């Protein structure tokens, strides 16, 4: 730490210190850029692991009947796929982006709590190591769905459920520490003149996401703790025989779960709000309304959770309340979509890869929002619930929503991170293959879902065969394309056209005022924001 102390003594002196050498640089680093990179790499590895599981699922569903895996293993694949994508791929990717970009965007030298930052990252490999190890136990890994409803996950769970619980605890602690760090950084380390309403939207959406995280991750921790006590200590939170109630589980879980889906999308909203103005060469339309819309979405996300439970037998007034409250979310979401479209309106648009992903984000996320509205209609949800229609809905908000948001951010900021331009032709190929692949994979799921195909099954009725085959082919295409992304990133790190400090002429923000690649230490003396 002497370097840090030194730097206070002689401001600017620390520019001479580069990163430490060797492996220990990564183990011990407290540098936000190093930690950001580690988060991003970790999340990409998890994306490939979770993606391979999706390939197993789609291979089994390629044709009706059981061909490749046994139903028991199939259930473990759907469960682990969901858990890894949500907690291992999407959430850490956004924390990685936050680490890299928030200090650069607000003119801070680093995150506010750098050592905690290191710890919160290193908890993740431990958490997912534990989670993945369960697949090698005799009774297999978690097989109760990523929503792990009791009593499936308690009374009827495989032994490895205790590992699962411990893993969830670790990743929860990691996200909470990450969130505290983000809040402390944003509230305390902004450069002089960077008032709250001057902050880039990515910073705003992350600030709100961080508050969601510290509000609901502890509830998830409580939920798995109750499971642990039911399984090992003879309590009956979710066990009807002892006076508990399995439906209580669903309330506790979804009190966490619905805000969680916004945790996975709000930072993407912020990133897209930076990218669209850059390539439309116009300032973002309706900045203030964007901030308020994000805050309203976050608030509403706490009072809609039972829309996942329309069919469990809640009173009519409850059904109505949760139906209307859910539909209300479409209003601030609509404001955002309107603002993005209006930003593009009459802009001098160019379609580099980040912009392609951002425009696809707006269009496809909206489709996912509409299917969400259909699901929010309580009487109709009795038909849709637990069918492939729900699977189509959440993949439309998560793949072209969260994941495309992450891809768009990666291409947008890669020049800043690496100092090189990525290969534009390959980037565009990656986009179009992903775009076509994901639509082929997920659009037909709407149809089979409406026709009644249930989710989480390894076999299905013959009538669904054609659409499932199309879905599987689309999924294989999408999956394979992600290896191209890996290649593009490695190629960009190793070389390529030199990137200027500001490679996109329409881009705005402090991050473009530092050279590319961003030096190891930036803003040791805070910039002046007018």
């Amino acid at each position: 730490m002497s370097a840090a102390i030194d730097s206070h003594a002689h401001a600017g002196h620390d520019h001479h210190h580069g990163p430490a050498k060797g492996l220990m640089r990564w183990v011990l680093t407290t540098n936000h850029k190093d930690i950001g990179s580690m988060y991003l790499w970790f999340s990409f590895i998890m994306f490939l692991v979770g993606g391979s599981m999706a390939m197993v699922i789609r291979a089994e569903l390629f044709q009706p009947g059981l061909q490749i895996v046994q139903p028991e293993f199939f259930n473990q694949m759907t469960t682990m796929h969901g858990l890894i994508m949500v907690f291992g791929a999407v959430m850490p990717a956004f924390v990685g982006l936050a680490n890299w970009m928030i200090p650069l965007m607000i003119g801070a030298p680093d995150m506010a709590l750098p050592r905690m930052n290191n710890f919160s990252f290193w908890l993740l490999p431990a958490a997912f190591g534990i989670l993945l190890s369960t697949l090698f136990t005799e009774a297999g890994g978690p097989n109760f769905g990523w929503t792990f409803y009791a009593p499936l996950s308690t009374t009827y769970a495989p032994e490895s459920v205790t590992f699962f619980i411990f893993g969830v605890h670790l990743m929860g602690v990691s996200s909470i520490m990450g969130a505290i760090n983000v809040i402390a950084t944003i509230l305390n380390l902004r450069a002089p003149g960077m008032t709250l309403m001057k902050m880039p939207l990515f910073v705003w959406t992350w600030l709100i996401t961080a508050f969601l995280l510290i509000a609901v991750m502890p509830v998830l921790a409580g939920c798995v703790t109750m499971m642990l006590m039911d399984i090992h200590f003879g309590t009956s939170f979710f066990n009807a025989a002892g006076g508990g109630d399995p439906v209580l589980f669903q309330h506790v879980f979804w009190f966490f779960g619905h805000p969680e889906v916004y945790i996975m999308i709000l930072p993407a909203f912020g990133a897209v709000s930076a990218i669209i103005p850059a390539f439309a060469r116009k300032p973002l339309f309706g900045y203030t309304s964007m901030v308020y819309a994000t805050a309203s979405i976050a608030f509403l996300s706490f009072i809609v959770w039972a829309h996942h439970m329309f069919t469990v037998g809640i009173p009519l007034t409850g059904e109505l309340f949760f139906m209307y409250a859910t539909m209300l979310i479409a209003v601030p979401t609509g404001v955002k979509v309107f603002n993005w479209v209006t930003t593009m309106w009459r802009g001098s648009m160019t379609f580099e890869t980040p912009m392609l992903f951002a425009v696809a984000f707006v269009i496809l996320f909206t489709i996912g929002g509409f299917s969400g509205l259909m699901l929010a209609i309580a009487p109709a949800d009795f038909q849709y619930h637990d069918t492939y229609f729900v699977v189509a809905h959440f993949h439309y908000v998560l793949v072209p929503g969260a994941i495309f948001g992450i891809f768009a951010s990666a291409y947008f900021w890669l020049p800043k991170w690496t100092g090189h331009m990525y290969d534009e032709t390959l980037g565009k190929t990656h986009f179009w293959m992903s775009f076509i692949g994901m639509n082929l994979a997920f659009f037909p799921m709407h149809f089979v879902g409406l026709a009644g195909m249930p989710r989480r099954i390894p076999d299905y009725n013959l009538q669904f065969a054609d659409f499932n085959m199309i879905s599987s082919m689309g999924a294989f295409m999408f999956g394979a394309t992600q290896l191209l992304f890996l290649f593009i990133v490695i190629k960009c790190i190793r070389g390529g056209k030199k990137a200027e400090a500001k490679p996109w002429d329409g881009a705005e923000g402090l991050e473009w005022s530092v050279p590319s690649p961003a030096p190891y230490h930036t803003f040791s003396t805070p910039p002046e924001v007018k």
Partner: protein
Amino acid sequence: MAASLTTRQLTVRLVGVVLAMFAFGFALVPIYDVMCQAFGINGKTNTSAYQGALKVDETRQVKVQFVATNAADMVWEFQPVGDQVVVTPGRVSEMRFIARNPSDKPMTAQAIPSVSPSKAAAYFQKTECFCFTQQVLQPGESIEMPVRFIVDPELPADVHRLTLGYTLFDITARMPPVPVAGR
């Protein structure tokens, strides 16, 4: 930027929020129970004997049906002696359930009641029920168990029929049967 709180103060407060939310997760358990009682959610009914008296409403009759189910892995034979009774709201009625332990070891069971439609649950009062306690049966032993109940005359007018269902759980592992002397 003049921060109003130091990073340490801010962090301590945020950790406080985290701990409070962890506690809130557990607070959801009693909150849920209160909500269920208040709104009759999930068909939950009273778990101890109802003491009050209700006015009899001779103008109306309600059909009460009975269902007995075994939870998974429960081996007892368990059924009501009759399928349904027609009751006058406000009057005490009775139904008996029979349970038999066909296994070769003593077992403890707990019955969990539930009323549907769930909006009727708050108007269904049990004055006596085998579900208020646990049942212990020796191998081959059987038992006849009564439930006495009153349907509240305030029951919404559109409910003409309601169902009282019991699910019987094996809780031997949790509450081992105490060996009975002399048997």
